[in-house]
C-alpha cells in the first residue's frame, strides 16, 4: 500500500529538501518535462524511507506489490539494471530518476506497461551480456567481495538464464550443487556461463574443446555431463 499520496507542488517542499531546485527547474525548462520529473520524484518518496532518503527493501517490497510483480522476479533486476542501481535492495533518488526517465514512466501504470518493452530491450544480445555481468556485480554485497556462494549463483542463474536456456541451467545447477571443488563463483566463471550457453551445443556438447580457455569449472561440468 502506498505510504503517502501525491502532493501538490507547493507542499512538496516539506518532503523534498531540494524543492528549491526543482522549482527552478520547473520554471527553466518545459512544463511537461518538469512535471514528469516531479511525478517521478513523488513516486520515489512514496516508497522511500524518510530518515535515509532511500528506498530500502521494505519499500521495494511495497513497490513490487503495486507493480504486481514478485520481488524476486527478474524484471525487478532488469529495472535495477536500467537504473544502474549499485546496492542490492536499495534505490537512491538518482538511480530511480535515471531508470524511470529512461522508461518514460512516471506512474505505476506506465511502469507496468513499460516492463514488456524493457524485457525486450534486455534480451537484445548486445544488452544481454551487459545485463548478465551486471546481475553478478549486483549480488556482491560486501565491499571487497569478488565472488558469490554457489547457492546464490544457482539462484541467479535460474533467474537470469532460466527462461532462455532451461536445459543448460537445470544441468548446471545440478552440477554446481553436487560438486565439491568450488565453493564460490567469481566474475570470470560467471561470464563464461553465458558464453557457454550461447556457443556450445546442448546437450550434445560436441563442439566443446577443453583445450581452449574455458574455465576449469566448465571443463569439469562437461566431464560430469559426459559421465552421466
Amino acid at each position, binding site marked *: 500500500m502506498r505510504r503517502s499520496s501525491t502532493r501538490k507542488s507547493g507542499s512538496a517542499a516539506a518532503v523534498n529538501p531540494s524543492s528549491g531546485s526543482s522549482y527552478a527547474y520547473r520554471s527553466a525548462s518545459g512544463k511537461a518535462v518538469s512535471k514528469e520529473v516531479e511525478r517521478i520524484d513523488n513516486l520515489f518518496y512514496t516508497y522511500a524511507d524518510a530518515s535515509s532518503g532511500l528506498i530500502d527493501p521494505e519499500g521495494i517490497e511495497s513497490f513490487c506489490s503495486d507493480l504486481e510483480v514478485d520481488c524476486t522476479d527478474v524484471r525487478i533486476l532488469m529495472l535495477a539494471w536500467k537504473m544502474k542501481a549499485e546496492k542490492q535492495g536499495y534505490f537512491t533518488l538518482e538511480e530511480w530518476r535515471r531508470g524511470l526517465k529512461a522508461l518514460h514512466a512516471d506512474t505505476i501504470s506506465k511502469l507496468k506497461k513499460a516492463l514488456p518493452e524493457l524485457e525486450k530491450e534486455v534480451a537484445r544480445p548486445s544488452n544481454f551480456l551487459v545485463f548478465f555481468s551486471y546481475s553478478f556485480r549486483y549480488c556482491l554485497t560486501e565491499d571487497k567481495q569478488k565472488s558469490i556462494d554457489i547457492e546464490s549463483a544457482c539462484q541467479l542463474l535460474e533467474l537470469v538464464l532460466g527462461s532462455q536456456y532451461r536445459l543448460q541451467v537445470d544441468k548446471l545447477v545440478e552440477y554446481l550443487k553436487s560438486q565439491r571443488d568450488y565453493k564460490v563463483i567469481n566474475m*570470470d566463471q560467471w561470464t563464461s556461463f553465458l558464453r557457454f550457453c550461447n556457443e556450445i551445443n546442448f546437450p550434445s556438447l560436441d563442439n566443446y574443446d577443453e583445450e581452449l*580457455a574455458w*574455465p576449469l569449472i566448465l571443463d569439469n561440468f562437461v566431464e560430469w555431463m559426459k559421465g552421466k
Partner: protein
Amino acid sequence: MPANHLQALTSPQMSSRVTVLCTSIVGEVSRRLCKLSPKRRRRIHDMCIQRSPHDTTEKLYTKYKEVIMEYITSVVLPSLKDKHDEFLLRELVIRWSNHKVMSKWLSRFFSYLNRFFIKRNSLPSLDEVAFTCFQDQVYKVTKGKVKDAVISLIDQERGGEQIDRGLLKNVIEIFVEIGTDKMDYYKNDFEEEMLKETASYYSRKASNWILIESFPDYMLKVEECLRKEKDRVVHYLHATSEPKLIEQVRHEVLCVYSSQLLENEKSGCCVLIQEHKVDDLSRMYKLFSKIDDGLCRISQIYKKHVTVEGTTLVKKTDDVASNKEAEKRVVVGLQEQTFVREVIELHDKNMPLVNDCFQNHTLFRKVLKEAFEIFLNKTVAGSSTAELLVNYCDNILKKGGSEKYSDEAIEQILEKAVNLLGYIYDKDLFVEFYRKKLARRLLFDKSANEDHERSILTKLKQQNGTHFTSKLEGMVTDMTLARETQADFKDYLQCNPRTNPGIDLSVTVLTTGFWPSYRSSDFHLPFEMTKCIQAFAEFYPTKTNSRKLTWIYSLGTCNITAKFELQTIELIVTTYQAAVLLLFNDSDRLSYSEIMSQLNLADDDVVRLLQSLCCLKYKLLNKEPNTNSISSDDVFAFNSKFTNKMRRIRIPLPIVDEKKKILEVVDKDRKYVVDACLIRIMKSRKVLNHQQLITECVEQLKVFKPDLKLIKKRIEDLINREYLERDSENLNLYRYLA
C-alpha cells in the same frame, strides 16, 4: 705426276680414278695395312688441290662416303647377320674396333679434305661421316639382338655361371661410344631393358627366398646380391648405372617385403631384439636405413619392445605388492629395490643396441627415451618411481648398504641411478623424498661415505642445474659446519666449566630452508637434558648473530646406560625414547596417560614410542595387559629382567611413512612454481593466447610435468588475483596487468 697431266684427264676418268684410289686404300686399311706409299699419298694430295673444272674434292668426299658404305654393306653386315649371342658380340666388337681404326687412318690420309673443302662448306668431317655410317648401318640394325645377348649373359652370371666379362665390357662400351657425348643410346637401347630385367629377375628370386629363408638369412642374401651387382658395375657396366641398378634390386628384394620381414613372428625384428642378436640387428640397420621409412618402422618396433619389457617389470612389482599380505612391507620393499635394479639393467642392455647396432641414430635414442618415459612415469606398487629411486640411492649410500662394492662400482651405480632420473617427470618429488632420506642419513650418522654423498649431488646438479641441488648441498655443508661448531662448543665448555652440564652433548644446527620442515613440539625435555640445551643456547650467540634456534628433539639420539638386574647395557635410542625410559627412574609403574602427559606428546608419537620399547625386538618395558599393541588403558613397568648378549644395543624406532605429507608439500610448491612461471611468461609477452601460454609454460617447467588442469586452474587464480585478464573480444586471449 705433273699437274697438267692430271688436268688432261676427263671427268669420268677422274671419277673412276678416285673410286679406285679410295677402294684400294680402304681395302688396305681394312687389312690393317696402314702404310700408304708416298706415291699414293701424292696422288691424293694432287687430287685435292686441283682447281676447277678439274676440282675433284667434292667427288672425293662423296666417294669417300660411298665407299665406306659399301664396305659396311658388303663386308661388315654380312659378318654379323647370322650370328647370335656371344658370337654376335664378339664379331661386333671386332668390327667396331676395325672401323675405328679405319676411320682414323682414312681421315689422316684424306686430311687435306678436312682442312679445306669440308671446312669451307661446313660439312661433316670424315670422322663423322664414317661414324654415322657405322651408326646407321650397323648399330641400329643389331642393337636389339646385342642387348638381348648381353642381358642374357648377365642373367647367366647371376645364376652362377662364368661369363666373359671383358667381352661384355667392350660391348657396353660400344653403347657408350656410339652416343659420343651423350648417354642416350646406352640408356635407351640397353640400360632401360637391363634394369627391367634385373627387377624381374630379383622379383622372382625374392618371392622364393621370402618363403624359405629366416629374416637374418634373407638379409644375408640381400647383402650378397647387392654386393654382386655393385661388382658387376665395376667390371662391365657403366658407372652411372650403379645407383639405378642398386635401387631396382633393393626395391625388389627389400622394399617389397620389408613389412613381412620386419614383422616375421619367428625371426623378425622383434625377435632379434629380444634375443639380442647384435650382428643381425646391425645388418638390419644398414640395409633398412637405405629404404624409405625403414628406420622409422624399426624404431617403432624397438620402442614397443622396450616399453613392454619395462611395463612387465612394473607389473611384476605391482603383483608382489598386491599379493603378499603378511610380510608385506619387507617383501614389497625388496621387490621395489629389485625393480629399480632391473630397470637399470634394462637400460644397460639397451644402450649398446642403440649405440652400436643402431649407430647412435637420433631416432633410436629418441624412442628409447620415450619408452622409458612411458613406463617410468607410472605408479609402481602405490609409490611414485621417484620415491623408489630415492630408496634405491639411500640403500647404496647408507652404512652397510654397499660394502661389497668398490668405490668405482658405487660411482657407476650412482651414475646410472641419476641417469634414470632423467626419464622421470616428477623430479621435484625426487628432491623432496631425497631430502627426507638424506636428513636421516646425516642426522643419524647412517651415511657410509661423504664423498659418495657429494658425488651423487654433483651428478644431479649436472643433469638438472644448480638450483635443483642447492638445498641438498646446503644440508651436507651444514654437517661440515656443525662439526666446526661442535669443536668450538667443546672449547667453550672447557673455558666455562660452570656451564658444563656434565653430559656429552653434540648439536647439529640445521639451516631452515635446506632441511625438510620438521614440526617442533612442546615436548617436555627430561630434566637431565635441559641443562645441556641451556649450555648450548648460551654458547651459540657468542658464535653468530641474530640467529633463532628452534630445537627439534624428535631428531635427536641418546646414549643411555640402563642398569638391569643382571647386566648393565648401553642403549642407543632416540631422545623421545630416552625420555620415556628416564620416566621410570622416578616411578616403577606408569600408565599410558601418565606417560603422555609427562612427555606432552601426541597419541601417535606415544604409541610408536611405547611399541618400540616393549612390543618389538627388545622388551625394555613390561606391559599390562601383555598384548602386542598399545592401547590407552595400558600400564607400563620397567623390565629389570631384560638381558642381551650384547653390551650395547640400538633400539630402533620405526619411521612414520610421510609419503602423503611429502606429496602435499610438493603439490603446494608446484602451485607456486606454475604461478611464477605463468607470470614470468606473461610479463615478457604482455599478450598471449591460451594454447601458447600453456605450451610455453610446459616447456619452461623442467622439474615436473605439469598437469594441464593445474595450469588452467592457476591461470584462473591469477585472473582472480588480477595479475592477468581475459581480453573482452577474444576470450582465448590473456593480457598481463602490470
